[in-house]
Structures are given as structure tokens and as C-alpha cells.
């Protein structure tokens, strides 16, 4: 997929801006706070219908304006054009997304996963540094783009959880139901929740099994080959709370996971009732990143939990490898190349690693890179022809190419 052009109107610090992109490499440079990232955020609106920085639409409206519009034209591998636009009116709190001028009503079927984008920014470090919710969000978004069914399971789980939590809270606060009604209702929600959780966990495990291959490949090219990275699925279901090494033990069937969830919910229901909140389910699981270092002093291999032991550099390498693996995974699954957005990436890394990344960028489709200066320009020119790079200088919400 290629993004041919982008139009921003009253978006962030842009009053009105048309940008025509290069099909290969787009180098967006300018000082901090001038609006480089805003361009990438606008790209996220025309590909996902929302901001990947998680900003509220109202915050994206330009100062003293009431509405913004961003639109862009995508071109797929066989030359078909898609005109996507996203608009928001602050006073009406109304967002409208259009595909080829037609209003999109069911966004999840019509847009989601159609215009894939991989976004790598300093923000992405939250995947390894942040709390479990950040990791679940990252992987959920990735799986959901390739499976509508998974997206629907997630939506249903969120709804059931809300209902179950309301039930627990109503009972704790005001004894809203008779003892018998309450226990029957709780059992009912637990049944739905263990079914949904098991379907979700099963799909996450199946995904990890596939994804780890992509991940090790991209990690291998960034780091010494004798470090083996692992992604383990951490759930209370397996081995009395120890993270599951599913690569060794194989993936359990959904029915088996469901039975375990049912037992676990029975076991914890007393605690759930007294605390008034759901404590068991796929919404409480985590992904654990570890690094297995071979040939260390002890002779055997040693495993490091990334969260507690890794250096800043190792964290960054992990995240970049995750994102590059995301790219290749999406490309294979969706059958079209995502856009690669690299926000302020190079400033964070040492020179050797940057050269390594830059030398491989040719393997990716259309790239958008932001930086404060043109430091790595000479390296890029070694791999890209002069008509394959476009430069955009950003100053105070104006783009000059």
C-alpha cells in the first residue's frame, strides 16, 4: 500500500496543507514542536480512523477552530486508488470517516486492517517498559487487524466484563440482588467470560507461535546471534502462576483452557465478591519478554527477564525488532505492505545500529521518517536514488518540500 498524498485542514498546528509523498522514502525534518509528528498522526487518522498516540479527536482540532479534516489517497499493489478521509466536529462531537466519498458506518469491517500502518516512535518503548495493558493493546491490535473474529471476541469480552463488574459492584455497594439471584448471575457471567477468555487466549497463543519466528528473525539482524529472545504468555492458568512456555509444552485446546478458567473463577469468586471486581480472565494476562544468553560464565544459557534486567539499548532493540516483525507479519497476513512510520527513531540509537537499520530499509515499502536534522542523509543516499527520497521541511505548521 502506498499513501500518495495527504491533505490536512485545521489539524493540530496545520491550517491547510497538501503534501504529495514519495512512493519510497519521505524524510520529514524540522525542529522540535514544529509539527513533524502531527503529519504522522494525520496518517493514522486516514488509516485507522483514530490517533495511534491515543489523543482525543477534540485535542487534534486546531486552536480556535471547531473542526478538522484529513484526507489521503492510498494506492494498492495493482494500482487501485482509495480515497480515505476523517473529519471531526468539536461542537457536535461528531466523527465521520469516508471511503471513496461514501460514509463508513461499520468502521471495523470496512476500514480496519485495510490500510495497515506500523508506527515506531519513542512512545513505543511503553510496550516493554509499560504496564501489561500496553502489551495487551499492542498485540490485540496486531491480531485484530488480521482477524475480525478476534476483534469481535475482544469487544464481547469487554462488554461482559463491564456487566460482571457492575453486578459485583451493585451487590457490594447496596446488596442489589437476593443471594440466590446474585450467585446465579455471577455463575452466568463466569460461564460467558471463561468461554470468551479461552477463545481469546487460544488465539493469542496460536498467534505467538507464528509471530515468534518473525520476531527472532528481525531481532537476529539487530543483535548478536547468540542471544535468543522469547515471548512467553503469562496467565494464572498455567503451572501455578508461572508464565507458560508454550513453545515447549504446546498449545492447549480451547476447551481445556475454558475448563481451567471455570475452575479458577470458582476458586477466586470469594475474593471477587469481597473486592467487587473481576480478577480472572484474559483481560489480566501479560506477555513476558526474556532474553536467553548463551555461552555465559556458567557454560549453559541464562535467561533474563527484559523488564527488570535489560539495559536501555536492549529495550530499544527489543521494541524495534517487535515493530519490524509486526511489519512483516502484517504484510504476509494481509497480502499488502504496511506503511512504515519512524518517528524520531534515529536520535535514540547508536550509530552502528542506525547504519544496520538504514541498510535494511530498502526491504520495506513506503517509509516516513521524522528527524530534527539531516544527520543520516548521506547513509540514506547510499541506498536510495535521488528521486526515491523526498524531503519535507516543517516549520510552524507549514511544510516545504
Amino acid at each position, binding site marked *: 500500500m502506498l499513501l500518495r498524498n495527504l491533505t490536512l485542514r485545521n489539524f493540530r498546528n496545520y491550517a491547510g496543507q497538501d503534501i504529495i509523498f514519495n512512493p519510497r522514502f519521505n524524510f520529514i525534518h524540522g525542529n522540535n514542536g514544529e509539527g513533524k509528528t502531527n503529519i504522522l498522526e494525520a496518517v493514522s487518522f486516514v488509516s485507522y480512523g483514530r490517533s495511534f498516540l491515543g489523543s482525543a479527536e477534540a485535542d487534534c482540532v486546531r486552536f480556535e477552530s471547531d473542526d478538522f479534516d484529513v484526507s489521503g489517497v492510498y494506492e494498492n499493489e495493482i494500482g487501485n486508488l482509495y480515497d480515505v478521509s476523517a473529519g471531526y466536529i468539536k461542537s457536535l462531537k461528531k466523527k465521520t470517516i469516508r471511503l471513496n466519498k461514501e460514509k463508513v458506518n461499520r468502521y471495523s469491517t470496512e476500514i480496519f486492517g485495510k490500510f495497515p500502518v506500523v508506527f515506531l516512535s519513542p512512545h513505543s518503548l511503553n510496550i516493554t517498559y509499560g504496564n501489561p495493558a500496553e502489551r495487551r493493546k499492542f498485540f490485540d491490535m496486531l491480531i485484530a487487524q488480521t482477524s475480525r473474529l478476534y476483534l469481535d471476541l475482544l469487544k464481547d469480552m469487554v462488554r461482559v466484563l463491564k*456487566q460482571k463488574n457492575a453486578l459485583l459492584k*451493585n451487590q457490594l455497594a447496596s446488596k442489589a440482588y437476593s443471594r440466590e439471584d446474585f450467585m446465579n448471575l455471577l455463575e*452466568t457471567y463466569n460461564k460467558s467470560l471463561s468461554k470468551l477468555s479461552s477463545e481469546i487466549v487460544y488465539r493469542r497463543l496460536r498467534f505467538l507461535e507464528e509471530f515468534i519466528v518473525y520476531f527472532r528473525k528481525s531481532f537476529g539482524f539487530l543483535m548478536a546471534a547468540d542471544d535468543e529472545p522469547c515471548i512467553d504468555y503469562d496467565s494464572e492458568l498455567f503451572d501455578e502462576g508461572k508464565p507458560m512456555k508454550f513453545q515447549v509444552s504446546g498449545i492447549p485446546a480451547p476447551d481445556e483452557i475454558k475448563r481451567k478458567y471455570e475452575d479458577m473463577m470458582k476458586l477466586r469468586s470469594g475474593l471477587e465478591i469481597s473486592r467487587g471486581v473481576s480478577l480472572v480472565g484474559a483481560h489480566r494476562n501479560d506477555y513476558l519478554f526474556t532474553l536467553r544468553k548463551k555461552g555465559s560464565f556458567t557454560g549453559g544459557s541464562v535467561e533474563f527477564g527484559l523488564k527488570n534486567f535489560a539495559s536501555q539499548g536492549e529495550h530499544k532493540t527489543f521494541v524495534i525488532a517487535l515493530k519490524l516483525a509486526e511489519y512483516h507479519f502484517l504484510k504476509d497476513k494481509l497480502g499488502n505492505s504496511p506503511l512504515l512510520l519512524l518517528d524520531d527513531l534515529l536520535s535514540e540509537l547508536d550509530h552502528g545500529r542506525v547504519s544496520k537499520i538504514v541498510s535494511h530499509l530498502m526491504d520495506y515499502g513506503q517509509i516516513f521518517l521524522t528527524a530534527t536534522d539531516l544527520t543520516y542523509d548521506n547513509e540514506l543516499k547510499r541506498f536510495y536514488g535521488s528521486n526515491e527520497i523526498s524531503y519535507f521541511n516543517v516549520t510552524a505548521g507549514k511544510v516545504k518540500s
Partner: protein
Amino acid sequence: MLNISDTLETLVTELSRLPGIGRKTAQRLSMFIIKQPREDVEKLTLALMDIKDRIKFCRVCCNITEDEVCRICCSEKRSRSIICVVEEPQDVYAIEKTNEFRGLYHVLHGRISPLEGIGPDDIRVRELIYRLEDDPESKIEELILALNPTVEGETTILYLSRIIRPLGIRISRIARGLPIGSDIELADEITLAKAIEGRITI
């Protein structure tokens, strides 16, 4: 904005409280009523008052009726061994239109949703249990749960089947799947997945 008439304004406000009616439509309806002959408006007024005064809920199935017991529950032609449970009275009409179901109904008037403060006591579950368990004349053998395929509908189905199963009554739910005359290629993934899950041996 200029308020032409307080009377008109009151009618517009009242009409726009109806479901599916916005202010614009309420204005159009009001203008139409103004131009109507007096007797037509009287007929409408009477119909509105009558519906409030005469319509009540059937003592047996909780459907809306003008009598103590509704026409379906009174009918000699209906099978007394099977009940179809629905969320709202309009679902009864939808199923009646098929002319395929010859049993009785039970209208819950809602579905369980703790988020909105709706528990089993807020919908007509007790009335259903009475019909199945305590009513001395009951001959119910089977229950069809025809609730909406939403998270709340599913929850209500699971809850009902949980409390009714001990009574030894056969419980079924309506199938989910493809609309007749449609193409598989046009169906959305979720419906298709449910249709595959609920496949039937032939």
C-alpha cells in the same frame, strides 16, 4: 429564536420525546395536525387515551392485551406444551407473522443488564418460573429462548437456562446464521462463524 406559539412549542416538545422522532419531524407532525379536520384529531386523541386506559399486561404471558388474559393464551388452537420466550411484545408479532409457531409466548420486557441496573427482578422472570413450576394447570414441556443475539441477550439466555434446567424442561434457543436468499460471500465473518458453529447434520 422566535417562539410563535406556546401551544405549538409544547406539542413539538412532547412529540420529540417519542423514539425515532427528532425536533424537525416533531415540527412536521405538529404542522400536519394543525391542518387536520377536528374530528380526525379527536380520533387520534381518543386512540392515544384508549391505548393508555385499556392496554394492560396479560396475567399469564405478560404480553400486551385488553383482557385479563391475552388472545393467544386463551386460544384453543395453541399448543399448551411449548413456550417461546422473547424480550419485547413486538418480537411476538414478528414471530406470529411467520405462522409457524403454534405454542404460547412469554414476554420478559427487557433483558438482564447490571450496567443499567436491570436484574432478574426487573424483568418478568418470576412470572415465567411460576408458569413452569407452580401453576397447577401447567403442561409445559419445552421452552424456546428467542432473545436478541447481543451480549445482554446471551446472558439472559444463559441465566434462564441455568435456573430452569433443574425443572426438567427441554430448553432450546433459536439458531443464528445466514438470512435466507443471501450469499455466503456477502455475509459478515461473525455471522458466518456462528452459522458454522451451529451447523446441522443432514
